[in-house]
């Protein structure tokens, strides 16, 4: 068996407001190194909730969470922020760029925060990534000045900049037309195949999901295999 990048053991999550509600019930799942996994399920089944727990941003859950062999539950906010910075890349449905910063600054920000490379190396990295995604000519534009498809590619570039262990996407193609959606999938697939990156993507898009290595189907807080 390949090395596990991400693993959960019996994760439970409750919403307390407005009524007590058991959202996630004993979720145990894993993502292997280099694996491209999608999570599908109808609205309200808890797939996004699961993703935010896996992303370390939501810490209000029961059960164990491992990333890259490290147990994450019990770490404090600072430590989790550092792990997100170094090991996890995010792509959201809405592009979520800093509108007042240039494309290049958006991409470089997580790497500067990590602080492991010099400014010059980060710049070279960022330009390489932009070139890989075919948007290098947008580098010095303000993030608010580029098109939706381009924004999503910039978001992917930002997710890639620190060479994370895993990239998580919450409906990364949900807001794009089919051409741009295919484009994003092809980029993910290429990165998965060529660089051995792991992907975990929550999606509604069945065509998208079918092309991934494995589909995790969720229904009402449990995993249906």
């Amino acid at each position, binding site marked *: 068996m390949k090395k596990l990048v991400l693993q959960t053991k019996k994760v439970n999550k409750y919403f307390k407001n407005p009524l007590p509600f058991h959202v996630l019930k004993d979720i145990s799942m894993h993502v292997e190194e280099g694996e491209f996994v999608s999570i599908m399920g109808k609205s309200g089944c808890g797939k996004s909730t699961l993703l*935010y727990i896996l992303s370390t*941003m939501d810490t209000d859950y029961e059960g164990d969470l491992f990333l890259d062999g490290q147990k994450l539950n019990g770490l404090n906010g*600072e430590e989790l*922020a550092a792990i*997100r*910075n170094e090991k996890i890349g995010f792509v959201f449905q809405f592009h979520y760029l*800093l509108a007042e910063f240039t494309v290049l600054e958006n991409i470089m920000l997580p790497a*500067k*925060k*990590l602080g492991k490379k010099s400014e010059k190396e980060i710049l070279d990295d960022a330009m390489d990534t932009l070139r890989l995604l075919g948007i290098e000519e947008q580098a010095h534009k303000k993030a608010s000045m580029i098109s939706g498809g381009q924004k999503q590619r910039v978001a992917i570039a930002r997710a890639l900049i620190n060479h994370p262990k895993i990239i998580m996407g919450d409906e990364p193609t949900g807001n794009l037309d089919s051409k741009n959606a295919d484009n994003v999938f092809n980029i993910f697939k290429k990165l998965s195949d060529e660089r051995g990156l792991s992907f975990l993507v929550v999606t509604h898009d069945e065509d998208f999901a079918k092309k991934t290595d494995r589909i995790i189907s969720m229904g009402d807080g449990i995993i249906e295999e």
Partner: protein
Amino acid sequence: MSNFKIILSITRIHLLTRFKQTSIAALGVTFGIGTFIILVSFMTGLNSLLDGLVLNRTPHVRVYNEIKPSSKQAIEFANEYAEAFHVIYSIKPKLSQTRIHNALPMINAFLADERVKGISPQCAAQVFYLAGSLELNGRITGINVEEEVGLFNFQEYVVEGKPEDLIKTSNGVLLGAGIAKKMSLHLGDRIQVNSSSGGRFALKIVGIFQSGLAEIDDVQSYVNLRTAQTFLGEGKDYISDINIKLWDMEEAPSMAKEIEAQFNVSAIDIKTANAQFDTGTSIRNLITYAVSITLLVVAGFGIYNILNMLIYEKMNDIAILKATGFSGRDVQWIFLSQAFIIGLIGGILGLLLGFVVSVMIDNTPFVTDALPTITTYPIDYNPMYYIIGIVFALSSTFFAGYLPAKKAKNIDPVDIIRGQ
């Protein structure tokens, strides 16, 4: 450290892209600090002018021989009436000399005291200024010019001529401005003076003296100590007042008591004579600080408001920063440093504004008869006020930024991202 640099770069972009709001927030601080500097410089300038008017001119201890009834009347010496209730009619002051008894040895004793900065003996005489057949009532005080100038800034009140000229001219006089006006006398003219004992003297006017108080300027003139003594037909030991200046004004009351007990003379200290001045100064200071603090609190609310709005606007940015690995504390510092920079820039501009306006006030003509040597409004450029100003600017903006920054720190990125 690199963390700090990147936080500052985010801060910079936030501030610059909202240049208008940033400037308005900074202007609030500028206005508050500027007003503080202007108020405090002007008020303390005015205070020290007024204090100086009284305190510099007034001896710390004045020793004189007071004409008063004996504190122990004759009947009280009689043992057989010791238990009785005394009723004495028509008490008169005791007949004694108006000069200070044994003044010269007393002066030597004061000079030997290490608390004493200097002393200035005076000899006062009642006179009549003669203008034709008209006699104007007046008072001439014999002074030691060097001591008066050195200890009590006497030269500030000599509006024409120089006090030093008095030393060179033995029968010179520094004439009160009121008398000079009444008698149409000018520098270099001569004036006839009758002493109360009947002698007549011709004095040469070497200067005009103006205290600002008409009742003094209309009667008072100054001559050399020796001249005044000659006037009275008395010797060198005739001294009516001894003015003492101390190194430390606070010692005046105890010193006055000591002198009274030791030498059997009257001594009055500056604190007793001018108690109202201390009160006036502290109340003016209180008003200055109260107004300034109010202004800065208002400026602080402005900053609080703007940062709060900024944080609502920046919810998405905060969520992204947190999702990509910035901790709550990083986000808090982004907003705190914005408040800090607004405070710093606003504060420095405020100091500049305060300084420039102070200089303008300092150069505004201010002419008053009461203060003959003052030509412009007084300003106190104490650097301490500038330090207080910038410290206040930074601390008030820090507190104004603290709550919004704390809110930003605690924003849950999941709420923002899911909310869309």
